């Protein structure tokens, strides 16, 4: 009884903060909501039907999975070597660590704006540099097409996710005792073997944490894509959360937007469960 009393207040607060908005959204998704947020009447699953009929929804859902996979995968693959280098002792390590952590201090919207201007077709730094280096003859209109704008956005996503992931990995690397490497060296294991059979398995729980947390953040990540292309042109960079925003605040269909929100929760929940289940099985 006493344990419950002790954790009771925190549990209650967490429940209110998490459960109340969820119930609100669920309710909104079952009603007809006016463009200005006034709840008009109960419509059952009509909003969900409307959502599934919209061709943009399916495209956005697939692109969201693509976005999440590319950003999280890219972040983890990039962060591991960076963390390992930063784990070594060398001159200027403090400075290097600070630089790697700097993108984390900027708001996502700011980072997106800076890169949007850098990739601007007429005035951007990227085109200027590429032209100077002789790599391109005429300026490339990076943000004008989905097939060039989307990779740029993925790049920005990776850039802003690396600091957080590096921090997790640095913590993981620090938790590995140094003696086992000595023992391995004595036993004749080369550096690659040490990495493959000792570092990686011991880092596994940290990689799992990094992947799960990043998956959740990136799946819901709004500022980068919204600031840079607003999901356009012609929905070619649209993901679920930007599509939801457009539905709620530009087209004026908050009820359908609430339905999309519930769908997103279901999807990210499912992905996380599947991933954790796979992890458990492998680790066992």
């Amino acid at each position, binding site marked *: 009884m006493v344990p419950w009393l002790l954790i009771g207040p925190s549990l209650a607060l967490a429940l209110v903060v998490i459960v109340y908005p969820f119930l609100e959204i669920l309710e909104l998704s079952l009603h007809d909501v*006016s*463009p*200005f947020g*006034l709840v008009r009447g109960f419509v059952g699953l009509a909003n969900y039907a409307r959502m599934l009929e919209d061709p943009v929804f399916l495209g956005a859902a697939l692109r969201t999975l693509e976005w999440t996979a590319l950003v999280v995968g890219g972040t983890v693959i990039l962060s591991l070597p960076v963390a390992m280098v930063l784990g070594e002792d060398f001159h200027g390590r403090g400075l290097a660590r600070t630089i790697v952590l700097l993108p984390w201090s900027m708001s996502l919207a700011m980072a997106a704006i800076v890169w949007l201007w850098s990739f*601007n077709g007429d005035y951007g730094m990227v085109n200027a540099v590429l032209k100077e280096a002789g790599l391109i003859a005429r300026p490339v*209109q990076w943000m*004008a097409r989905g097939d060039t704008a989307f990779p740029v956005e993925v790049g920005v996503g990776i850039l802003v996710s690396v600091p957080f992931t590096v921090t997790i990995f640095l913590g993981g690397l620090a938790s590995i005792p140094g003696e086992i490497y000595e023992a391995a060296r004595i036993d004749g294991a080369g550096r690659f073997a040490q990495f493959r059979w000792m570092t990686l398995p011991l880092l596994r729980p940290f990689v799992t944490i990094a992947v799960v947390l990043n998956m959740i953040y990136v799946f819901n990540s709004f500022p980068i894509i919204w600031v840079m292309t607003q999901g*356009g042109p012609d929905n070619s960079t649209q993901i679920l959360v930007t599509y939801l925003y457009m539905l709620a605040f530009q087209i004026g269909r908050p009820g359908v937007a609430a339905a999309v929100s519930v769908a997103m929760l279901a999807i990210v929940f499912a992905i996380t469960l599947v991933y954790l289940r796979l992890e458990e099985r492998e680790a066992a």
Partner: protein
Amino acid sequence: MAKAAAPPTVRTGVRRRKLMAAAGSALVLAPFTTRAATTLHVTVAYYSAATGPYFKQMAKEFEAANPGITVSIDVVNWDTLLQTLQTDISGGVTPDLSIIGTRWLLTFVKDGMAEPLGHFMTPEFQNRFIGAFLEPAKINGKVYGLPIAASARAMFYNKPMLTKAGFPDGPKTWDDVVAAARKIKAAGGYGFGLQGKAIETDVYWYYALWSYGGELIGPNGKAAFDSPAGVKALTLYQTMVKEGLTQPGVTDDTREDVQNLFKQGRVGMMITAPFLINQIASEAPHLQYGICPVPRGTTSATYAVTDSIVMFANSHAKEAGWKFLDFLFTKGPRVQFNKNEGFLPTTKAAAADPYFADNKQLQIFVSLLPEAHFAPTIPGWEGMAQAVIDAVQSVYLGRAEPAAALKLASVQADRALSGD
């Protein structure tokens, strides 16, 4: 021996009690005196750097003439205005007055948010306005908003570039535009500035649609822009993009981006509103440019927009709000506002002011009003606009052909228009 005068001290019993009584009653009465003053909350949309200072100045002048009323001005960017008002309405903290896009009025009225102004408006007040501008804000015969900003659209052209291309007075038809753009392209410039991103990308295409006699919505209330006129208009733009007669990054350029290119003298022709005149005067004073009507197709047409200022039905300061509106729509404040922002006068008094009557450039815009299409006040405008934007963008990107894209958009638009 002179008697020393006793210095008056507050230690004297009666004086002290009087002082305490005075202080005490002041403290008790203070809340009542401040509550007697009304605070008016006004939300205004950002048009330019001059908007905030103008309204704060108007607030000060109004407060001086009306002691007891405090006016608080909140400046919000257009792209977040709808969302800001939505959040305010959901949270129950609406301002008393707000500038809105007139096309939002229908939803406002449907939800019972807007106060009908008829019972405040005397015939004298009604007569101050140029009739056409009052119409868009009339719903079911009642006036819900006052036209605070109005503009029509015309073509701005770079004089040296167009003279070299053989059109010293600007292009008259779309064929002229294409011919001039080809010559400009050959000389290394961008011919026709085409907006392909963000709000009003659809309107940029409507100029061509309307000039070929097309309509947005048919008499049966359904989308009518996928007509032959629509296909012709979109094919025209598609040809210009394909031939490189526009600036290169069409789908990455908002109207502001195209205006920037025009101000830099890199774009030969673009269609926009009168406020570009003020921008050029302050940012690119040496640019030689001209203004001419939107190019003809089979007919002449342009787009006219009004923004309205509305009063919220749940306001607690309606009398004060009306007084402020009355003040804002007198000649002085109106002329000042239009001068700052470069908008067209919506009141007869402002139109008669020499600044407008003698302004040749603004008179061109005014002369276009008889053929102007106003955005119809219908539900689902935003949904229809988004469908059209997606369609034209897919054509500019080369991902779809005009007829197919417009057909798809009309299906989406019909759903939006039917309130689905």
